[in-house]
């Protein structure tokens, strides 16, 4: 009873949120509704006993994908109202396409039949006393170990690709050079000068600078100095 109630509650919120994703005028609101929809879908997964999928949905989709969407929407400043201008004009054609698709789906459903072998092949033994996450882990790291590793290689290639296509060496960028910093000695940068009281300020010859840039500046700005 409780479960049924919970299902209807989550499902209703999910559908309402999904509708608002499409209908909201403000794109930031749309993304927030999307997050709400993800959370409710996760709850439905929990009700179905798929707790691993539920957690993945929250972590990956809410934690990463939706936040990324939010960034994109905020940074690109796309005018969604403009994108939606032709909506009414394209509505009839869209409706026709939708009706055709629905009719085709109905047709497919009416002739739906599994192959004779399918039930036998589908009958996977479910290990007793093992929860869903453990079962997934057991199968992922044994039977599907190969695919798991191969997916890792794909992600590596995606990473290499992102770096190859976007990383640029820009000239003139000031970077911290730790080796140069630690190699700097006191006598390179600091000069101690004995001053007689009351003699006033004198320009002290700048010590041999460790960096060319600084030397240039010193030459430029202190004509009295020199080396």
């Amino acid at each position: 009873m409780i479960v049924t109630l919970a299902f209807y509650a989550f499902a209703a919120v999910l559908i309402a949120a999904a509708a608002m994703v499409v209908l909201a005028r403000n794109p930031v609101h749309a993304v927030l509704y999307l997050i709400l929809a993800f959370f409710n879908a996760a709850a439905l997964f929990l009700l179905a006993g798929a707790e691993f999928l539920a957690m993945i949905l929250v972590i990956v989709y809410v934690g990463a994908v939706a936040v990324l969407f939010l960034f994109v929407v905020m940074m690109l400043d796309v005018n969604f109202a403009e994108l939606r201008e032709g909506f009414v004009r394209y509505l009839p054609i869209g409706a026709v396409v939708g009706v055709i698709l629905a009719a085709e789906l109905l047709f497919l459903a009416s002739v739906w039949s599994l192959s004779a072998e399918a039930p036998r092949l589908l009958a996977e033994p479910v290990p007793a006393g093992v929860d869903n996450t453990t079962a997934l882990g057991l199968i992922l790291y044994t039977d599907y170990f190969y695919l798991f590793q191969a997916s890792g290689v794909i992600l590596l290639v995606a990473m290499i690709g992102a770096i190859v296509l976007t990383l640029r060496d820009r000239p003139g960028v000031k970077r911290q050079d730790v080796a140069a910093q630690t190699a700097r000695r006191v006598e390179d940068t600091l000069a101690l000068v004995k001053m007689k009281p009351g003699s006033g300020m004198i320009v002290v010859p700048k010590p041999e600078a460790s960096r060319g840039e600084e030397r240039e500046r010193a030459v430029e700005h202190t004509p009295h100095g020199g080396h």
Partner: protein
Amino acid sequence: MEGILNWHAALPELVLALAAMALLMLGVFLRRGATDIVSPLSVGTLALTAVLVLGSDRPRVAFGGLFLVDDFAVFVKTAVLGAAAFALVLSLEWNRRERIERFEYPILVLFAALGMLMMVSANDLMSLYVGLELSSLSLYVLAAVRRDDLRASEAGLKYFVLGALASAMMLYGMSLTYGFAGTTRYEGIASAIGAGPMAIGLVVGLCFVAAGLAFKVSAVPFHMWTPDVYEGAPTPVTAFFSVAPKFAAIAVLMRVLAGPFGAAVAQWTQIIVLLAIASMLVGAFAALRQVNIKRLMAYSSIGHVGYALIGLAAGGEEGLRSVLLYMTIYVVMNLGVFGCIVAMHRQGGACERIEDLAGLSETAPGLALAMAVLMFAMAGIPPLAGFFAKLWVFLAAIEAGLWPLAVVGVLASVVSAFYYLRIVKVMYFDKPVGAFEALHGGVAVVVAFSSILTAGFVLLPSPLLMAAGGAARSLLVP
């Protein structure tokens, strides 16, 4: 665990993957001058992997049935690795001249090759998809590797978007197949289809999987991306695209159609016949008006895929053998042609127009001779390898009773002879427009290797015939 995991069967793939990662680390830490070290090492890695592939025990099944090594896989893998290595050699000097010498380039070629090996060895729709995605993702990046060039970026983006669409179509087909057959394992699908009348979902699934693979081999009507990508990508990348991924994708198409969907031969033969006829005609007629030689080669490759698909439509050991022979000879010829295109470089940049070849016979007689031999072979002039490739494909079609295919094929190859021979005419009878820069050693080796093999194939065809015959047999009798 010997019987279940059996990872020794995948030793070449493991070596290739680990070597690629090690070379990546080497490149990252060396930074300056890394390309000069990583590129030759990558060529060496591909050669080492090819040796390991040739020495592998077969037939073997590994990773609980996800991975299969048989004569067919060994044949295709060796060809793919060789093609990748030669394409990499073509890129060495080019990348330096065009200022895109980045050590990631050979690494991505290695990963693309790894993906191709995995998809050729796949014995399950899931491992097929994972291998295909690995190679495709590397290829998308390679197409756009010259990122400051507008055309290259366009090529990369176009290839990525359309490739993703094709992958999605194929995944949809795979999910339908899984839904109706109850498994993604090839043997399981075969027994599900063989068990009774074919479920409608399986037919739909078959169509979608075939369409996705047809995109990858750029068969008409899924060829729209090919000319733009071939033209926009850097020439060595185009050379790589036109040989290794194409052969691997054709091999996957062969394995999927002859293996899991072997019982549905009546359904898929019509698809393949249609693809073959359309590809041959578009490849022949659309190439006539091209002025850019890379675009011309794109249409030429579409046409060649059409001829290869004739053999697949014919089916049986004879037909499958003719596809393998056709693709092997095509790969060898194409590498040489692209070697010549890479060599088309004058002061101030690369040349890509056909008229830039004018008078090549006077400025570079050796290169012109090699190009002429390859063009005659592509057109299918008798003593050269290209003629035998077409001959076997047409013979297989006639023996299978598909004579309309053979007729269209002969007519299309007559039309296509026009543009191949036009290049010979431009090289030998037009006024010279200035010499190209001196030929780089690696490029010269590839061109010489390709043209000598193409011309001398008639003298010693038996090793290739035997190997292809064994490979085709292993595909039919598991």
